[in-house]
């Protein structure tokens, strides 16, 4: 399940959708990314998230399918918000269910690593110095690269 939306999401609802899916599930791993109020040494008062309607959803779906093929999973759910966000707001939810925890942990990290480097989202920060587009991080590319071996 892939959702790209302006509205906030409820982690309990997402978790229950994973849990009640099948009695064969033995593990659920969830990740929630939040908006920080600092970046690159500056205070950040708000964030705007831009995306590429259509392509963003299809890239997320592709990442989800790759995870489903790579591990034995029951379900992968991805929710990503767009538009204006404030500090402590939820940005992204990734939830993975499987029979055993190892696969759920690995797949959750895999989805986040590829989402960060491949899904067309862009963050623009409002700081005391003005607006600026967030720079991509080399460490995110490195994190995604480790799954290629």
């Amino acid at each position, binding site marked *: 399940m892939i959702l790209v939306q302006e509205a906030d999401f409820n982690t309990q609802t997402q978790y229950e959708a994973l849990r009640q899916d099948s009695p064969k599930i033995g593990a659920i791993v969830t990740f929630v990314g939040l908006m920080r109020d600092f970046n690159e040494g500056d205070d950040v008062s708000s964030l705007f998230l831009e*995306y*590429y309607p259509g392509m963003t959803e*299809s890239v997320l779906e592709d990442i989800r399918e790759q995870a489903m093929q790579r591990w034995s999973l029951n379900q992968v759910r991805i929710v990503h918000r767009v538009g204006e966000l404030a500090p402590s707001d939820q940005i992204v939810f990734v939830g993975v269910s499987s029979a055993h925890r190892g696969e759920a942990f690995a797949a959750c990290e895999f989805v986040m690593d590829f989402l960060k*480097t*491949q899904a*067309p989202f862009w963050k623009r920060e409002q700081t005391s110095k003005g607006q600026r*587009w967030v*720079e*991509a991080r080399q460490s*995110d590319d490195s994190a995604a690269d480790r799954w290629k071996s």
Partner: protein
Amino acid sequence: MSSPNTLKVLFFARLRDDLDTNEESLVLPQGVTTVGQLKAYLCQRGEQWQQALSTQGLFVAVEQKVVDWDTPLQGFEEVAFFPPVTGG
């Protein structure tokens, strides 16, 4: 004989700000057959374009899929240029 190929060209995030445009309709000029050649053609418009499209790690997508610079454009309708992604 092929009919003129009209492309929708999209720009996102910093690129859109730097170029003051998010979308344009472009009849493919003669000699422009790949996405790399399209980028070179756009760069010829001046310093502003040259700089924006020289973004390190620039992505190009055709029909909403990221592609290599030697990908042919013939028969496609939508091309998008965008900077490295920063979601999550």
